[in-house]
């Protein structure tokens, strides 16, 4: 799943890099309160263990083999924040020391394997564990296996989407066509995911029985918990999460039903025989001609508007606070 240089459209690679920088900055800041100096060698050994575990190939059938990604494994053992940093280190070593995965594609590789895989793995594991609500070995195995399978499948889906978007917005100069990338990546990784699920569950259950003290969760800092609870109870936060979730889920489907016809003003101009003049300022972006280009433009626009709105809110709030102080 390591994307080499020159395969991705530069704009997609840039977006991947920006996403990676934003998440890793948050993870590094958050790890400051969670990771003690004594934990550093432990996290390093776990990352090295994941790197080596990636070298153990397992049989998929028909003479084909797959290997672990390890994102879910690290997230379940060490927690999502540490897993993001640990997996970033693994992907960075693969790129810088072994030439596996490109420099310009590093952001996208890290997003797929160091951010999406551990977060999805940990999220699905936590969700299934709560749904099952049973501390038995079978329930635990189910939750771990579900998390591990989902981590591989969703990371592969993200990689396929990036390849398809690159192909669509570059007119075929970069990426891989969606008709090849999506079925190939999803089918192959759905099978590899089964191996990841079985092996991750096997490894964690073995470790839990052989060394249970390694899995005793550290008591969470009380201030952390209070801050999280306050944030979660905030109505603005709840509304923002609800709106973001609905938009994020709806965006891919919205473009499927988008009409290619002219809008009201364009139709009126066409009826009146008025032509569009030369623009004073030409934008480097366009909405594109097909589904993936439009989806990508939609995602870019959505992110830009959201960031702008948050900045305006922050500026307004600080202005109000200053007025109150006066």
């Amino acid at each position, binding site marked *: 799943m390591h994307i080499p240089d020159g395969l*991705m459209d530069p704009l997609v690679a840039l977006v991947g890099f920006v996403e990676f920088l934003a998440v890793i900055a948050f993870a590094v800041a958050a790890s400051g309160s969670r990771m003690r100096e004594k934990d550093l060698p432990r996290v390093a050994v776990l990352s090295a263990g994941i790197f080596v575990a990636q070298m153990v190939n397992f049989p998929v059938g028909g003479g084909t083999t797959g290997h672990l990604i390890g994102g879910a494994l690290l997230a379940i053992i060490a927690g999502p924040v540490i897993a993001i940093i640990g997996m970033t280190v693994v992907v960075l070593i693969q790129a810088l020391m072994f030439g596996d995965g490109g420099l310009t594609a590093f952001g996208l590789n890290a997003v797929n394997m160091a951010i999406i895989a551990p977060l999805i793995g940990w999220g699905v594991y936590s969700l299934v564990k709560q749904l099952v609500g049973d501390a038995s070995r079978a329930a635990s195995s189910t939750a771990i296996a579900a998390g591990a399978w989902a981590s591989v499948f969703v990371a592969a889906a993200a990689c396929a989407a990036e390849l398809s978007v690159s192909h669509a917005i570059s007119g075929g100069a970069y990426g891989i066509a969606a008709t090849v990338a999506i079925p190939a990546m999803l089918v192959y990784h759905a099978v590899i995911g089964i191996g990841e699920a079985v092996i991750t569950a096997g*490894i964690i259950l073995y470790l839990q029985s052989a060394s249970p003290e390694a899995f005793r969760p550290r008591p969470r800092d009380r201030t952390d918990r209070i801050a999280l609870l306050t944030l979660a109870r905030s109505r603005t936060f709840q509304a923002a999460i609800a709106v973001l979730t609905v938009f994020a889920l709806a965006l891919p489907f919205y473009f499927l039903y988008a009409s290619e016809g002219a809008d009201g003003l364009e139709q009126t101009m066409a009826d009146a025989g008025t032509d569009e003049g030369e623009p004073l300022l030409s934008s480097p972006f366009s909405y594109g001609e097909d589904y993936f280009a439009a989806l990508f433009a939609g995602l870019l626009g959505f992110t830009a508007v959201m960031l702008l709105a948050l900045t305006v809110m922050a500026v307004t709030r600080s202005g109000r606070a200053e007025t109150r102080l006066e």
Partner: protein
Amino acid sequence: MIVAHLANRSHAPPYAATATKSSWFIPLDARAKVVGVFTYVVACAVITRPELIATSLIASLAFVACSRVDHTAVGRAYLSALPFILFASFSVFLFSGTEKGIAMLGRASACLMPLLVLVVGTESFDLFAGLRRLRVPWVITTLLMLTHRYILLFTEELSRLKTAKEARGHRGGRSLLDRYGLRVVSSTGAAVLLRAWDRADRVYEGLKVRGFERDMTAWKSSRFGAREVLFCAVLVGVSAAILAAHL
């Protein structure tokens, strides 16, 4: 920590140890190498016109040749990445035509070769120290260094476990339905992690004794001198020329 790293230099980088000693590229400051190569790779990744891709491919080959790093190691690493590049090029060839397919192959190769020169021609500790000097957060660079050291240890551990498995008659399993095969793979992975976990505390004590203080401290002095400025200027100049021709 540094002492420990230097003491284990014989293990260290997979390619740098075999790189040609006479190379002018190897002694360069890692910051210059990272910045120069990254700029050049970004420029190569952006271009789409066939004549520019051909030019950048020739420039990359010239860079490999004149860097005097171990060419066999660069070739071997390139061959291991080639199947994925060929798959992508073939897909582009099927959907967008021969010209774009060949362009993809040329562009990906032009980007990969300087990266492999960086990999082959830089010692691991120099690279991590260079990243630290480029203001990469300490938690990442310290973890990079420690992880790299443990990878070498656990690769040996894994090879010992593999030999032990084979001595007991394990031949790798046949498919995902082979429960025995997957159980052996799981327990091997778990054993590697368990040994790693046990070792971490002992390693921490060892590091403290050697004066470990969270952040890495470079022992060797390294400076961004005239050679580094010249190297960066050449690569940035070539990258700017490629981009200007592209625009």
